[in-house]
């Protein structure tokens, strides 16, 4: 083969593989909205794909490797393959006689199971009596398509976290924060919100949003409020360590995340707020022009923030200056969003 032919071949291969990898390379924001999942390319800040279905998603979680995106509509979990961007499965948990509501959800470290915080109400045909089961943490095997184990857990565990150093334990956040041993079913109370230890203040925390991304630093954060202050629960999923941080000022915050460099907290509700992770000092804040938002995502380089949904839009901010860069219209309202990097 002559040098020109070899050069042509190299160029051709670069074009083929460059194009193939470029098609999915980079950061994408996955946003479940009413009746669809929309995918935003962080390079162009446009919606590049819409996967339709007929449901309203209340929580979602990417698999640890980012290859799957699971979305809970209370009664069912929708499974999306992120490489092909196709809806590949729907796992249904509810029936007429056994009504299941799923809220907290986390895929296992090996991606083979889903941990589901579930409320189950059973009834008998033509019998006007409901049998309300205790709240359960169900272990659902995705391949076998069935619940393989379940544990009774405290009521209202709205957020489930896996630990990277300990695949046999889960953290459950709700009225209080517990660690669940999956081998024994034993619960260890890590922190009290509604039921604090003597001398501690009660804390009020709506722990629903886990804005983490696959392969990120592993630091989970959620705001809490005492009667006169704002604070944060910070859980290191690499070690299982839980700590709290008191905020300098009180802002209304639905959810938060920690920047990739582990220096800054970004939180959202009616404003975007930037807080120093070390001190809790407020660094900057700006009202969200579009209105109330639930979730916040950040690009892997830490440069851009994606604030939303809530309403049918996603606002993009410069993470350093909190300058609004653009607003991306969406097809419907939503609750959660996650950045997945391919």
């Amino acid at each position, binding site marked *: 083969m002559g040098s020109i032919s070899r050069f042509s071949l190299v160029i051709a291969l670069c074009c083929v593989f460059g194009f193939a990898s470029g098609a999915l390379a980079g950061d994408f924001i996955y946003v479940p*909205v*009413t*009746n669809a999942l929309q995918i935003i390319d962080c390079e162009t800040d446009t919606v590049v794909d819409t996967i339709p279905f*007929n*449901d*309203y998603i*209340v929580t979602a979680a990417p698999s640890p490797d980012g290859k799957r995106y699971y979305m809970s509509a*209370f009664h069912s979990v929708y499974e999306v393959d992120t490489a092909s961007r196709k809806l590949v499965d729907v796992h249904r948990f509810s029936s007429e006689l056994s*009504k299941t*509501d799923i*809220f907290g959800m986390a895929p296992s470290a090996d991606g083979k199971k889903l941990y589901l915080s579930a*409320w189950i*109400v059973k009834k008998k045909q033509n019998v006007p009596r*409901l049998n*309300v089961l*205790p*709240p359960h943490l169900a272990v659902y095997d995705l391949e076998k398509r069935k619940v393989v184990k379940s544990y009774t857990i405290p*009521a*209202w*565990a*709205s957020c489930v976290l896996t630990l990277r150093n300990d695949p046999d334990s889960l953290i459950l956040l*709700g*009225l209080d924060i517990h660690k669940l041993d999956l081998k024994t079913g034993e619960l260890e109370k890590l922190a009290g*919100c*509604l039921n604090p230890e003597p001398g501690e203040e009660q804390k*009020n*925390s*709506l722990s629903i949003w886990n804005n983490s991304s696959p392969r990120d630093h592993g630091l989970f954060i959620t705001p809490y*409020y005492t009667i006169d202050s704002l604070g944060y629960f910070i859980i290191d999923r690499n070690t299982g360590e839980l700590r709290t941080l008191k905020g300098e000022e009180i802002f*209304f915050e639905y959810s938060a995340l920690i920047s990739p460099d582990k220096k800054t907290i970004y939180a959202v509700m*009616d404003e975007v707020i930037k807080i120093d992770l070390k001190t809790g000092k407020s660094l900057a804040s700006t009202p969200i022009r*579009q*209105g*109330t*938002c*639930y979730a916040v995502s950040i690009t892997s380089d830490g440069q851009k923030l994606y604030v939303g949904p*809530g*309403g*049918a839009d996603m606002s993009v901010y410069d993470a350093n200056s909190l300058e609004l860069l653009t607003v991306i219209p*969406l*097809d*419907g*309202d*939503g*609750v959660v969003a996650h950045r997945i990097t391919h």
Partner: protein
Amino acid sequence: MKKKNIKAVNKRAKILEEKLEEKKVFGMADGDIITSMPIGCTTIFDTGWETNPRPETPMGNCVSSARDFTSCSGPCWWPAQTPDNITNFPDFQNQCRAIEKDWRNLNFVIKR
């Protein structure tokens, strides 16, 4: 529990007070109570916080022009304001995909 400095002035409040005395009415967080209702703002979230006093409209969340109306319909269970999309109106979102724009299409009370 009965508040010391609060006095019932109308019929409904008096009935409620009587029920409280008989311990027939109690807070969901008082004791180990399990209900079929999932978590939500009204159970683990300070409802005072949810009133969210903005300087401009909408003045509170969970109103039909507010951006969190749809998500308040299920888990939060604000029965006066939002459709119950868990049991009675599971597909109500089809009437209205983006509440700020489409709220006039909402028709969840009377099924047509």
